[in-house]
C-alpha cells in the first residue's frame, strides 16, 4: 500500500523539522497513541491503540528516523506488533519545502500489514492507512498552526488541542 500527499503548515521549515523529532509532538499527532518515549538518535518506542475494521488491538512498536537532512527531509520507519491482531509496518519519506513563512510537507508512505489485519482488513486497509496519515498530518498542522483556510476542515480532528500549541511552546 502506497500513498502520497502534501500538507501546508503554517510554520517555517526549522520549526516543522524540530517538531517531527519531538516525542511529545509525535504522541499528540499519532492517532490513538498512548505512549511515546525515546529520542531521534535512539529511536522511539510507542504504544498505539487502533481499530481497523473489526480488529481492535494495542500495537507496541519501534520507530526509527534515518536519512535525516536538517531541515529538508527525513525517513521514518516503524513496525507495530499487535499480538493476535497481527502487525503493521512501513515507512514515510518526508520532504519539507519552504514556501514563504509556511512549509509544504510532502510525504510518501508505504505500509504493510500482516496476520489478522491482512486477513480481515485487506479490503479496508488502504482507506484506513489514508485516514491515519490524514489524521496524523492534520494533528501535526494543528500542533504547529494551520493556514486559516484549512482550519475549518480539520478542526474536528483534535478539538481538545489549542491550535499552534507546539510553536507557542518552542517560542516561549
Amino acid at each position: 500500500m502506497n500513498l502520497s500527499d502534501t500538507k501546508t503548515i503554517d510554520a517555517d521549515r526549522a520549526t516543522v523539522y524540530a517538531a517531527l523529532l519531538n516525542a511529545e509532538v509525535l504522541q499528540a499527532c499519532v492517532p490513538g497513541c498512548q505512549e511515546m518515549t525515546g529520542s531521534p538518535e535512539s529511536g522511539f518506542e510507542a504504544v498505539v491503540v487502533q481499530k481497523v475494521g473489526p480488529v481492535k488491538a494495542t500495537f507496541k512498536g519501534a520507530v526509527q528516523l534515518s536519512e535525516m537532512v536538517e531541515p529538508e527531509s527525513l525517513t521514518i520507519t516503524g513496525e507495530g506488533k499487535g499480538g493476535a491482531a497481527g502487525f503493521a509496518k512501513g515507512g514515510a519519506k518526508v520532504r519539507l519545502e519552504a514556501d514563504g513563512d509556511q512549509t509544504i510537507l510532502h510525504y510518501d508512505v508505504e505500509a504493510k500489514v500482516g496476520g489478522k489485519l491482512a486477513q480481515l482488513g485487506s479490503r479496508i486497509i488502504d482507506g484506513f492507512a489514508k485516514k491515519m496519515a490524514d489524521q496524523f498530518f492534520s494533528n501535526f498542522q494543528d500542533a504547529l498552526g494551520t493556514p486559516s483556510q484549512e482550519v475549518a476542515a480539520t478542526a474536528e480532528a483534535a478539538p481538545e488541542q489549542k491550535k499552534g500549541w507546539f510553536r507557542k511552546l518552542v517560542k516561549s
Partner: protein
Amino acid sequence: MPKDTGIGASTRRREDVRFLKGKGQYTDDIPPAHDQAAAVFARSTVANGVIKSIDTSVAESMPGVLAVFTGADFADVGGNPAGWLINSRDGEPMKEPKRPVLAHGKVRHVGDAYAAVIAETEKQARDAVEAIEADIEELPAIMDVKAALTSDNFVHDEIGTNQCFDWGWIEDNRRATDDAIKGAAHVTTLELVNNRLVPNAMEPRCSMASYKESSDEYTLHTTSQNPHLTRLLISAFVMGIPENKLTVIAPDVGGGFGSKIYHYGEEALVLAAAKRVGRTVKWTSDRTEAFLTDAHGRDHVTKIELATDAEGNFLAFRTETYANVGAYLSNFATATPTFLHGTLMAGNYTVPNVYVNVKAVFTNTAPVDAYRGAGRPEATYSLERVIDKCARELGMDPIALRRKNFIKPDQYPFASAAGLEYDSGNYDALMDKMEEVADVAGFAARRKASESKGMLRGFGVNAYVEACGIAPSNLVGVLGSRVGLYDAATVRVNATGNLSVMVGAHSHGQGHETVFPQIVSDMLGIDAQSIDIVHGDTSKIPFGMGTYGSRSLAVCGSAVVRATEKIIAKAKKIAGHMLEAADTDIEFKDGQFSVVGTNKSVSFGEVALKAYIPHNFPIEDIEPGLEETAFYDPANFTFPSGAYCCEVEVDPDTGKVRVDRMTAVDDFGNVMNPMIVTGQVHGGLGQGIGQALLEAARYNEDGQLESASYMDYAMPRADDLPFYIVDHSQGTPCTHNPLGAKGCGEAGAIGSPPTVVNAVIDALQSGGKNVTHIDMPLTPHRVWSAMNNA
C-alpha cells in the same frame, strides 16, 4: 412404480431428522468433561520466518494456564507424512521435508502454529497466547510457483530446492506425444490457472483428547472423514501411540470435501497435552484458523496442447503443470496432482497419445491437498477448455467434435492413453440425453430473447470421465501409495432380528445411514428400519479407510454386500438345520428360508434367534452367533462420466455472469437412492459454479492471505445458482463391484467449472468479442476487462 424402500428407492434420509432438529452431535457439541481444558494456538503472522526465540515464561504464569507447548516439545516425535511416494522423471524420489506438530526453527506460512497454550478456559488460553513473546525474523515469502523453482530462497532449507518432484506420465509416451504434436495439422494451446480454493466446511475442525493413566489409553474425538486412517497416522508416524491404546471417534461431521481426510498437528497436540496435564483437552478452530490452516484445494498453473488432424481427430494431449503443494506435504498432496489427475488426461476420448508433466512446488502458503474432485476437476478443466478452444479454431460444433472422439460403447474395456482401463460407459448416450433434457435445440431462441434484453447469451458444454472408488490396493501400491485402499463392514444380526452394520466409511453428508440399510434390507428382505449403521468410532468398527474420492458406496458398500452375503450363507446353514434339510436345498427369498420344492420355511428372525439361543444346535458344524465381516478391495477404479451443459447471460455493461440453465447428465452406474444422488450432484454443482465464478484464495506477495473471511472470500449463495436439471438415467453398471455402482460425490464439482467458462466464452464471442480464455473465477471485473481489451 417407484419403490419407497430397498435399492433404487428415494428413501428419505433418516439422519436428517436429527440434523434438521439441531440434534446432531458434532465434536464441539459433546458436553464438556468435568476436567475439560482448552487449547489455543499461537500462529505465525508472517509467511516465512526464522524463529529466533520463543519466551513462554509470562504466558506460563498467567491465570489458569496449565501448560505451554512449543516446537521443541515435539522435536523428537515423527512428522506427519505424505501418503504417496512420487518419483521424479529422473527416478529420484520426491522431497519429503518433515511436517512437525508445531513449527520448529522456521515458520512457513501465515497460520503455521509455533506454540500452544493449555488453560482452564479458552479465554485464559487466548490471553496467554497473546503473552508469548516470539522473536520471528521475517524472510521474503516464496509465493510464485515458477519463480520458486529458480529461487535460492527455500521453504525448506534442508532440501535445497522448492521442487517436491518433477513427474512425467507416462514418461515412455513422451516422445510419441511430442512427435504427434510436431506433425499435427492443427495444434491448440491454452494456458490456464485452476484457482486455489478454501474448502469451507460448515463445521470448523475440532479435536478433543483425553488420557486414562490407569490403562495408558487415549481417546481422540475429532472432525475426520476417516478415523482409522487418522489413528494409523498418529500411531505409526507421528506420536507412536500403539493403535490398541488409541481410540479415534469422528461423530457427526459437518462437511469435509476432502479437508478432513488429513491428520493435522492440532490432533497430535491435544493428545500430547491430555497426557501431560492429565486433563481432557479441546481445541476448536475459529473461522479464520479454518481459512489459514485447512488444506486448500486446486492451485494449478497449466499449459495444455491438443493436436488434431485436419478433420478434428484428436492425436495428442500434452500438459505441463505447476502444482502448488503449499508449505508442507499434506497426506494426499502428492497423489492429487499426479495419479488422481494425470491418469485422467485422456478424458472420454480415443486419443492415442497423452503426456503429462507435473512439477510440485513448495511455497509459503497453507498446504494444498484433495478437495472435492481432487485432481480430476483440474484434468477435466484443462481438457474441456482446450477442446472448446480447438472447436472454435477448427470451426466445428463443440458437441460434434467431442462425439467424433468419444470412446464408443462397444470399445469397453478401454485402455486409455493415460494408463487406466475404463470398464464401462456410454458417452454418446449421455450427450444424447443432455441435448434432450437441456433442450439444446431451443438455445437459439433463448439467445435471441437474451439479446433483445441487451444481454449476451452463451452455451457451454463439457464431457468428463473421472476415477472413483479408490482404489485397488495392488495397483496403487505399484504407483507409490503407502496405504491400501480397501474398506470393511461388519454385519451383526442381533438375537431379536435387528441389525447393526459397522462400516469403515464415514458419513458427513453422504447419507450412509440411509443408503447402507437400503442395500442390506433389500438383500435380507427385512425392514430397513430394523438396520442401523455404526460408523466413525475405531473401537466399534472394522478397519476401514474412510470416505473420500466418491468411494463409500463402491468400496465400503461392496464390503457391506460381501458381509451380508456371508450372513445369508451362514443363515442358510442354520435354517437347513432347523428345517432338517441340507443348506444347499435352502432357498432365501423375501426374508424367508424355505426348503426348495416344499412349503417348509423359517423366517430370518427365527434363524437369528436360533443363532443366539443355540439349543439343539449342531455346534460341531456351525458356530453360534450371526455376525460377519468382509474386507473389500476393488479390482479397478470405477469410472463415472457425464455430459454437462449450461447457458449463461453476460451483462456486457458490467461483465456480470448469471448462470441461467445448468444440466448435469451423469453415469453413476447403478443408483441406490436417486434422491440422495441428486442432492450430491446439486452440492457439487454449487461448489463448481462457486469455483468458476466466485471463489479464490488470494495471497499477496508477502504471503498474507487476504481472502481469509467471508467478507473477502465469495461463497456461492442461492441467488448465484440456477435450478438444476439433473439426470442419471443413462447409467452403465460398473462391471467389477457387486453393486454396479460408480460414485457420485464429486461429479458436480468436476463437470461444472469448464461448462460455465465455455459458456461465458461463447457469450462473449457471440457479442463479437474475440476472447478465448479468462481465468477463474470469472468475476465481473475479469469478464469486463477481457471484453474491453479484446
